């Protein structure tokens, strides 16, 4: 036969009462406080995560903007380079045209000067030749030659004059 001591029963009752009291007045507030703290920490974490996401978003936006700016810069640089090349070509073409114009002008002047010099040279040669011929003729025109010149040239001139007078009378 099992004998149960009364003190054990009291001890059990005391223990149960203690457990109840602990649960009622200690565990619940502690758990509640822990839950609240946990929730607060979770909220903080979520806030941090949110901020982190926002910062990440801002970083991506800035990176995109930077990329766009770089592209725009490169495009502008390329356009400026093309413009500069175009201006350079225009200047070179203009310089070539100007050089060609100057060259043509100098050629034209040189040609004119050469023509003028040749004309002067020709005139000088003709003048000298004329003088030489005159001197030679003065020596070589004898009375006989003079007679022949008068006869031949006068014949031609008189014949021409006769024809003119005839046509005048007939007219």
């Amino acid at each position, binding site marked *: 036969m099992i004998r149960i001591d009364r003190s054990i029963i009291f001890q059990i009752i005391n223990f149960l009462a203690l457990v109840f009291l602990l649960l009622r007045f200690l565990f619940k507030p502690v758990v509640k406080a822990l839950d609240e703290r946990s929730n607060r920490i979770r909220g903080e974490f979520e806030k941090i995560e949110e901020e982190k996401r926002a910062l990440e978003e801002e970083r991506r936006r800035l990176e995109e903007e930077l990329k766009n700016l770089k592209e725009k810069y490169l495009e502008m640089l390329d356009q400026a380079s093309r413009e500069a090349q175009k201006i350079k070509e225009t200047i070179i073409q203009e310089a070539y045209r100007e050089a060609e114009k100057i060259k043509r002008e100098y050629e034209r002047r040189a040609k004119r000067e050469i023509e003028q010099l040749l004309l002067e040279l020709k005139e000088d040669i003709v003048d000298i030749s004329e003088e030489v011929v005159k001197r030679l003729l003065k020596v070589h025109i004898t009375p006989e030659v003079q007679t022949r*010149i008068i*006869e031949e040239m006068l014949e031609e001139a*008189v014949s021409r004059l006769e024809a003119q007078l005839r046509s005048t009378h007939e007219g």
Partner: protein
Amino acid sequence: MRDREKVKVITPFPLTDEQKDILYSKLSRIIRGPFLLEEEIDPSLIGGVVILWGEILIDCSVKTQLERLKERILREGIPHVHGR
């Protein structure tokens, strides 16, 4: 009596009788009636004769021929002389 026509004849040196005969002979073909030759000497003519009859001028001088040749050479260049 009609006055004789005066014809001025300019030559580089005095005319010989033969030359005068030629002049009379040629000029008689265009001048009706008698005429008188007035001689003048101009050595610059070189050769030939210049005749002045009224308003008519017959220039058969070597000087004028040379001047014409000179003008032609300056205008057209030296003419090419082809060998035979």
